[in-house]
């Protein structure tokens, strides 16, 4: 087990290395640099002299391979340097200040969609073809076809503009959370409802469920001990990456509801050619996603006694 964990962590570091290398290479392969895009944005030319000074300051005059080594040396100490787009703040500062908003939004979304998605999924599986099942399918289809940014604007239109019940944006308290969480929950509810329903239905057809019925157990016990426990493994498979995707924030939802989260920076850094920010967001995202997969695999072993974690020979 310890050896397994160690080998997985080494593997994770390898993934980070490869991802950072590819990202760094692609980033520099694209023509133009950080100051060109800024100049374009402001529609003014930056004199060659000043550009050279800027490049010198940020170390962009060095050969790319040296820049990468420099990045690596600093990155292992969690120092990503100053943002190019927001030169008064370091990347780490930006993360420290903005990320908590995204984490909070992500966790609230996760909690809400787990309750609604898994709840609807179980209800649909237990009574297939009933009104609950059709309602659950309806909710999923709605989640599937409704883009979150359209839904967000509709929510704002009804609950803020028309009814005046909720604030249009900001992040100052529970009243501000409701609409962003609803808009952010569409995809997770869809995924959780469908997976819960189908894996429950699969488990219900299993031989051991027939055995449980032959034992004369109550319906509730069969559903929760035999069906739900066995349906959990496929749910973990989608649940881990889903949770990871949520805590890194959402560009659309954060932008529409003016939430100062990190999701905005993930996207804006690319357009702004903010090299340190691109590297930091990519590496952090990679670490979170791979960490989530590792956590999912560890949970498998807890949830299913047939799974033992050993290092492959």
């Amino acid at each position, binding site marked *: 087990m310890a050896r397994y964990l160690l080998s997985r962590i080494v593997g994770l570091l390898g993934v980070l290395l490869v991802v950072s290398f590819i990202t760094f290479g692609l980033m520099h392969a694209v023509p133009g640099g950080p100051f060109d895009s800024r100049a374009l944005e402001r529609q003014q030319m930056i004199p060659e002299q000043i550009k050279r000074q800027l490049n010198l300051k940020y170390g962009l005059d060095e050969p790319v391979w040296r820049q990468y080594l420099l990045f690596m040396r600093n990155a292992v100490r969690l120092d990503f340097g100053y943002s190019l787009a927001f030169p008064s703040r370091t990347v780490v500062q930006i993360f420290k200040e903005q990320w908590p908003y995204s984490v909070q939004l992500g966790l609230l979304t996760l909690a809400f969609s787990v309750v609604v998605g898994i709840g609807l999924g179980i209800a649909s599986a237990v009574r297939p073809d009933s009104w609950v099942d059709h309602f659950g399918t309806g909710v999923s289809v709605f989640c599937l076809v409704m883009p979150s940014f359209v839904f967000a604007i509709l929510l704002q239109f009804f609950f803020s503009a028309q009814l005046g019940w909720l604030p249009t944006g900001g992040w100052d308290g529970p009243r501000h959370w409701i609409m962003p969480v609803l808009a952010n929950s569409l995809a997770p509810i869809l995924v959780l409802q469908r997976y819960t329903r189908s894996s429950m239905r699969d488990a219900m057809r*299993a031989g051991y469920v027939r*055995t449980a019925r032959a*034992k*004369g157990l109550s319906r509730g016990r069969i559903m929760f001990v*035999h069906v739900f426990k066995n349906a959990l493994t496929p749910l973990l498979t989608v649940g881990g990456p889903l949770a990871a995707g949520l805590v890194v924030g959402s560009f659309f939802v954060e932008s529409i509801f003016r939430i100062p989260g990190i999701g905005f920076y993930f996207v804006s850094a690319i357009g702004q050619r903010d090299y340190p920010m691109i590297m930091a967001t990519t590496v952090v995202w990679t670490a979170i996603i791979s960490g989530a997969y590792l956590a999912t695999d560890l949970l498998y072993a807890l*949830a299913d*006694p047939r799974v033992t974690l050993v290092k492959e020979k």
Partner: protein
Amino acid sequence: MPDALLRTVELTKSFTARRASLAGKKVKNLAVDRVSLTVGEGETLGLVGESGCGKSTLALTIMRLHEPTAGRIIFAGRDINGLGEAALKPVRRQMQMVFQDPLASLDPRLTVEQIICEPLDSPGAGARPVRRAPVARLLERVGLAASDMGRYPNEFSGGQQQRIGIARALALRPRLLICDEPVSALDVSVQAQILNLLRDLQDEFGLAYLFISHNIAVTAHMSRRIGVMYLGRVVEEGPAREIITAPRHPYTRALLAAVPEPDPSRREVGPVAEGDAAGVAGRPTGCAFRARCPAAAERCAAEEPRLRPVAEGRVAACHFA
């Protein structure tokens, strides 16, 4: 004949399948068609027939794991068809089932102890050590070690898994055990062990068996009486010894001819049934077996043979039996 423990009266189970077309015409499949059988207290009734003839469906219907379409299931003098889940609970304790696929029928997430104890558990039941003692005894009785209690089903071999399935079924002290192809998933040497175990347990616990198999030789070895099923119906029934020595129905003869004979000099090749059984959906008129029957005559197409007495304690559904 001992008192009847289980009696089915014209038990019928049909499934409605929807054709895969827009019109969605409903097709009724009679998987079990008016089957009447009797299992005496402490006695074994064998049930044979090829795959798809409705043996397993019959077993699941008797257990009320499938809802019967029509007919009666009289267990210990009481019709259990129509009983609600709550009323069925005490009945289920007396009537247990051993399934064909031992691994699939055991929950992979429960230990052997949990699997066996589960139906015994009720809120406030005895402390763990108290509950463990009978589990240990049961495990040892079926040929496993008491120390196997904490292990999971997938850690055992197929034969051992079936032993767990038997221990689980016996935990409730049933009077009737329905064994649905209990050995067909096991290899031959293990089959014999399990069959002998089942016979020993029968004497020890005074169990009645409904023993289902596609192998007429195995069934005859286990049973006092045998019923032969074809396309959802019983076509012949009688004492096991008489059925295998002097079969009356041509289908029974075909089943017997399918039993491998180890001595080549004694092999005789007689007329054997050919082809596959028509599906229950497209049941032919007249005798359902006539297309495969070497003795089929004109009468077989026109007139459906009824199950009728052919000798003392024997019935068969063939015009020429």
